[in-house]
């Protein structure tokens, strides 16, 4: 319910959601919860936490490298649940969405996954390679535990599919604003606005927009056309500098989010 509450409160305050993504294990497995807290302090409203997979096909080089860093530290789904549990000790309001690929969930078993996620305090799940039409069995485990299933919609998703996706989605809809893998650049605000409005014709759920957001300016621009601004690669690239910079990389992430929050709230 945290996701619903979060967007309701934002709507009352006439603000938009700032939704950062980082991968579990960044900058270190025992420092991920710290990074999550730092992001909330800098204005994040919802956190997407990636869980690693050996073959992150839909991700660009920056996020793929984060998956590799996580795996080289031996990060498992159970570690990801521990991170969320740790985070929940002092933050019981910020929604956490787990984002990753199906096979680790499949091997753990849908029921066990859903149970552990619920116990840890997870609010939503986005499985990149599990399309809505094949998600029924997993949703059947998540739904009774009040965990939302989040889906992607892209510039090329047909109306038939948008309709199908919106009929089973909960929490929010994640609109991927540019074609391609995560971390791509271009931004076409008018096109995004038209597309977001189009999606809203199919659902009352909030729409978050991600892929291609680099700074306060682009975040503020997106916030004028969407309910939430999703930012990932930019932050993940900062956390990748942990080896050289140490925990200062968390400050860099916080700095980006503060700039975005400030710019968004001025709109």
């Amino acid at each position, binding site marked *: 319910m945290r996701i619903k509450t979060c967007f309701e409160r934002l709507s009352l305050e006439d603000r938009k959601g700032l939704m950062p993504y980082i991968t579990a294990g960044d900058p270190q497995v025992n420092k991920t919860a710290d990074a999550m807290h730092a992001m909330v302090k800098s204005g994040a409203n919802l956190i997407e936490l990636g869980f*690693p997979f050996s*073959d992150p*096909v839909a991700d660009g080089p920056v996020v793929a490298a984060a998956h590799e860093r996580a795996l080289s530290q031996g990060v498992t789904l159970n570690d990801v649940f521990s991170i969320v549990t740790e985070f929940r000790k002092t933050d019981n309001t910020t929604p956490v969405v787990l984002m990753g690929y199906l096979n*680790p969930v499949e091997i753990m078993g849908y029921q066990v996954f859903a149970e552990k996620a619920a116990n840890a305090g997870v609010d939503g799940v986005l499985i990149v390679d599990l399309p809505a039409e094949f998600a029924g069995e997993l949703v059947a485990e998540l739904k009774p535990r009040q965990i939302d299933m989040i889906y992607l919609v892209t510039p090329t998703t047909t109306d038939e599919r948008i309709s199908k996706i919106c009929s089973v989605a909960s929490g929010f809809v994640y609109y991927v604003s540019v074609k*391609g893998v995560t971390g791509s650049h271009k931004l076409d605000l008018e096109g995004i606005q038209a597309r977001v409005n189009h999606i809203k014709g199919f659902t009352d759920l909030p729409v978050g927009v991600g892929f291609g957001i680099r700074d306060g300016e682009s975040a503020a621009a997106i916030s004028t056309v969407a309910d939430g601004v999703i930012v990932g690669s930019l932050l993940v690239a900062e956390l990748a500098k942990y080896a050289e910079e140490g925990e200062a990389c968390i400050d860099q992430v916080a700095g980006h989010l503060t700039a975005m929050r400030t710019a968004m709230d001025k709109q």
Partner: protein
Amino acid sequence: MTNTPFDFQKLKDLPDETGHFGRFGGRYVAETLMAVLQELEETYKKLWNDPEFQADYDRDLAHFVGRPSPLYHAERWSKELGGAQIYLKREDLNHTGAHKINHAIGQALLAKHMGKKRIIAETGAGQHGVATATVAARLGLECIVYMGAKDVERQALNVYRMKLLGATVVPVESGSRTLKDAINAALQDWVTQPEETFYILGTVCGPHPYPEMVRNFQSIIGREARRQCLEMTSKLPDALVACVGGGSNAMGLFYEFLSDESVKIYGVEAGGHGVESGEHAARMAGERQGVFQGQRSYLMCDDDGQITESYSVSAGLDYPGVGPEHSHLRAVGRAEYPYITDDEALAAFRKLTLMEGIMPALESSHALAYAEKLAPTMDKDQIIIINLSGRGDKDIHTVAEIDGLSF
């Protein structure tokens, strides 16, 4: 394990509308790929049933590939084994030296019909890359081949062949730097610029419609073999044997025979240094099922669901996943999937070269090695058809190295 009951007559009707073979297959991809896969599926279904497209495809198979390939009775070898008569389906005699050209031509013709100017492909051993570069050259299409950096090192000759054919070979440095990483890189390329690009996938794996489409383009192997066997011996074979990496040559041979109840089917996986050593590509032996690269199938992964590295002396079998139709045939009990180790395959490579004057690819040598075990358990009037999926020229360096030679 217990098999679920199945109807022989209905096996050939798969996959279903969602791309599933039983519980295997499907289209487990990010939303970013859905639209291009739907477009591909629609075009493929329309053209596969279009007589004009079929005529183009058949003409290329006859005059460019050199089909039909012979079905050759390996009399001397059969006699030595003292059991069933062994017939070799000579896909090694195809243009470019392997079965891969069959589906490369089919997919390239699709690309042309769809107006795509840019071809991408992945390759392991380099055979599929060479076949794709070949058809791209002939049709005047730009061609980019993704190849694991490790495979680029061990298959230098094929890399150079692709370059001579005008293709750009991109070494992939991520992950295990082998075939699975090359597929990831090709999928990422495709997501980034889908409008102008056609992805010629090299095996019966991946998201729907690839497993069905590649199988159908390869099914010419089994149609010819069935007809040739009836012409030569007046009966159907008793057993089929083919090696299984992703499984394209095997599905190509097996498909036409799926409803022939008397025909036993064996797909041979790579046992590498032995399954107990952990260094192998015997996906079925591990009993693990999951979702990887767009499909649900048997696969190799650890207890956390991370895909593990496969191993085989033959690059073409060195892959942690397997085509979903094979998984279904295994799960229902229509086909068996034994494995053969590196050493057994190398021995069979030498054996066929000396006994019949045919030098097989190391991939195909796995099928030969299994037939060596199977034939003596059968009667002299029984027939085994082995798919000799490729020729061994590309493997001479590997074999020479094992012999302590270098050129």
